């Protein structure tokens, strides 16, 4: 929009003024100024940084990744020793982060769904208890909760000598939870392959069942048959593989427990702390999701003669999922990001290992840039997946 007729002055200044009053021109000028400032600030910071690094004799670049890390990591899902490289150490950290986040997401969803539904219960006492749980865990910092669980485990549980035996072979001590594991055997590989094949088969079965129901109206008990097929085929594979029964059972040898699988106190503290904290938020998401479904939907299901459980599964939950997925994604992302607090209790997650790397090499910028971009990547992958899922679940409007 030009306001040239209002601008005072002679011919030349008039055209200049009108030019400056043009919205598009102004927008370009503003943007050039802002970009210029950003570049200037960036250049200033980078030149300062380079100067500082040179003065402190800190090398730059990602060359350190191939050097020997020379520190031990207390728990690792892959082969790792102090002779491994920094990049391998970081992969161990990343895997540990992913492990605790995935398990946390599963656990917080289960807990959150239970408490979210409990909060809507018609039972007064259940409703109040769920509210107390949610408000209590939501309003206390997650780091405090992590510290609490981390202090609790070594103090509240006994020394390996007096381990609590929850089940035969399952030992709870102040050094974590020990469980028996089957000794490696080729039957387990066969079982794994069969399980994957069974899942693919069930997917096809489900497609076929849906096609048949669309065409003929006859339902097919996919859930029942699928479960039977899955467990049946895996069990047959187990028998066919020779039915190995040898277990690696943890037992006390000397002052410590040997054998079996150990879940460390650090991992337990992080997992319990994160899941309980996030479950309080998930419960609220679940509650508002269910409440967002209009009451008429229940009534419609009633008038169709559906059972309450069928109505919940086929009518209410699919609709509340639609409302709940975006905030649920946020909670999962929060949990993943909060798993970085593991550094405070000594669980060797990505941040903790990057921190060690940073202290050893002095290359703070590189280490920080690595874990920042990994977290960004994880966030991006989660939100892409959830967007896809959301689109799949979304209402198809005609």
């Amino acid at each position, binding site marked *: 929009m030009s306001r040239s007729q209002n601008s005072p002055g002679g011919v030349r200044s008039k055209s200049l003024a009108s030019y400056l009053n043009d919205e598009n021109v102004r927008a370009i000028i503003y943007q050039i100024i802002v970009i210029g400032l950003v570049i200037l600030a960036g250049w200033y910071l980078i030149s*300062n940084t380079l100067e*500082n690094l040179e003065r402190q004799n800190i090398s730059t670049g990602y060359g350190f990744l191939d050097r020997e890390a020379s520190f031990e990591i207390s728990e690792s899902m892959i082969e790792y020793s102090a002779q491994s490289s920094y990049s391998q150490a970081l992969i161990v950290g990343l895997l540990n982060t992913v492990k605790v986040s995935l398990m946390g997401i599963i656990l917080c969803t289960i807990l959150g769904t239970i408490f979210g539904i409990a909060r809507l219960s018609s039972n*007064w*006492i259940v409703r109040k208890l769920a509210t107390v749980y949610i408000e209590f865990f939501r*309003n206390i910092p997650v780091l*405090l909760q992590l510290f*609490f669980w981390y202090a609790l485990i070594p103090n509240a549980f006994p020394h390996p000598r007096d381990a609590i035996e929850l089940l035969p072979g399952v030992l709870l001590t102040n050094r974590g939870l020990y469980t028996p594991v089957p000794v490696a055997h080729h039957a387990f590989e066969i079982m794994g392959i069969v399980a994957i094949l069974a899942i693919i088969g069930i997917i096809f079965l489900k497609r076929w069942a849906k096609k048949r129901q669309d065409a003929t109206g006859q339902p097919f008990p996919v859930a029942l048959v699928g479960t039977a097929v899955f467990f049946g085929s895996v069990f047959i594979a187990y028998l066919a593989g020779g039915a190995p029964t040898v277990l690696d059972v943890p037992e006390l040898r000397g002052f410590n427990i040997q054998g079996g699988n150990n879940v460390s106190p650090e991992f337990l503290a992080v997992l319990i702390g994160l899941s309980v904290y996030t479950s309080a938020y998930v419960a609220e998401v679940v509650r508002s999701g269910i409440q967002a479904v209009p009451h008429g939907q229940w009534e419609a299901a009633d008038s169709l003669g559906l059972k309450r459980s069928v109505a919940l599964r086929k009518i209410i939950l699919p609709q509340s999922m639609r409302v709940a997925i975006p905030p649920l994604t946020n909670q999962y992302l929060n949990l993943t990001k909060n798993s970085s*607090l593991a550094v405070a209790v000594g669980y060797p997650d990505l941040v903790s290992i990057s921190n060690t790397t940073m202290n050893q090499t002095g290359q703070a910028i590189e280490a*920080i840039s690595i874990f920042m971009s990994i977290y960004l990547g994880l*966030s991006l992958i989660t939100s892409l997946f959830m967007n896809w899922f959301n689109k799949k679940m979304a209402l198809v409007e005609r």
Partner: protein
Amino acid sequence: MTDIAKLPPGPLGSSSQRAVIWARKNLFNSWFNSILTLGSIAALFWIIPPMIEWGITNATLTPSIEACREVTGACWGFVNANLRLILFGTYPYDEQWRPLLAMVVLVGIIIGSLGAVPYAGMRKWIIPMWLVGIPVIAILMWGGVLGLTYVQNSYWGGLPLTLILSSIGIIFAFPLGLLLALGRQSSMPAIKTLSVVYIEIIRGVPLITVLFMASVMFPLFLPEGVTIDKLLRAQIGIILFTAAYLAEVFRGGLQAVPNGQFEAGNSLGLSYWQSMRLIILPQAMRLVIPPTVGSFISMFKDTTLVVIIGLFDLLNTVKLALRSDPAWTRYYVEGYAFAAAIFFLFCYSMARYAAYLEKELRKGEQR
């Protein structure tokens, strides 16, 4: 009881009859619910009496390790003996009235500004309150003038530090977040891109990485000879982090203002900033106040993360007290419970207030 209206017709009966009706309706309305009720009551009996025994009946407040060793319950004596260390950290002992007073002033301003929100006439006092309050708090904490001895901010700690980090964080993040939100809504591609990139990067990474960056990388950014201390670096990190989250809150508010309002501003011949200031923002701000309080709550909890870069906030002073004497170390439950109670008190009351505000500020829309 709100259910009285739903009671069966006829004489209401005695209160015990009404209680039975209420219990039938709310506790035993199906066999499944009856089991749940009985199970919950059993669980409560299993949990609550031992907790009362531990926390009250068998506990001691005497601030000595000997007294704590004699009792079977909680050793509140640990908190009692270390109260000032937990609340004020390593601030010089004789000067601790200053952080106490600063804390009272700060909590007063927070309550004052939150309390002023529902009253249109009072809202104009919020900014002056902070403009006066922040220097007062700074003078009290730092000293060096008016006969107060100078206290380096590396000695600050405890609850005042937690409160200062979070309130200064939100106050400075507010304008930055607003600019970012406006930038994200802007029609200028360069400004929009910059805002989106900033917001999404910050929201995609954990706060701890931003704090690490602030504590490790900021010193490298500065020219030779210029240093900023750890507290200020953490504060800047918190501000930069919170701004991205506030920007998304503000975007929600801006998007809720109907487009016709922008057009009305344009047709009145108002400039962008005029229509923002006079038309859009007053409407958007009313909508975003409750979620802003929500952001403040999460930031209040998140300030505990400064523990990881070695600042002594409330959580870290508890840990400091636990470490101060090996004999105290085993009373971690009491220490953490005390800190948790303080955090809970602040967060829960603010959350309730935010819920109240949300209702109060929407009154105009309900007819």
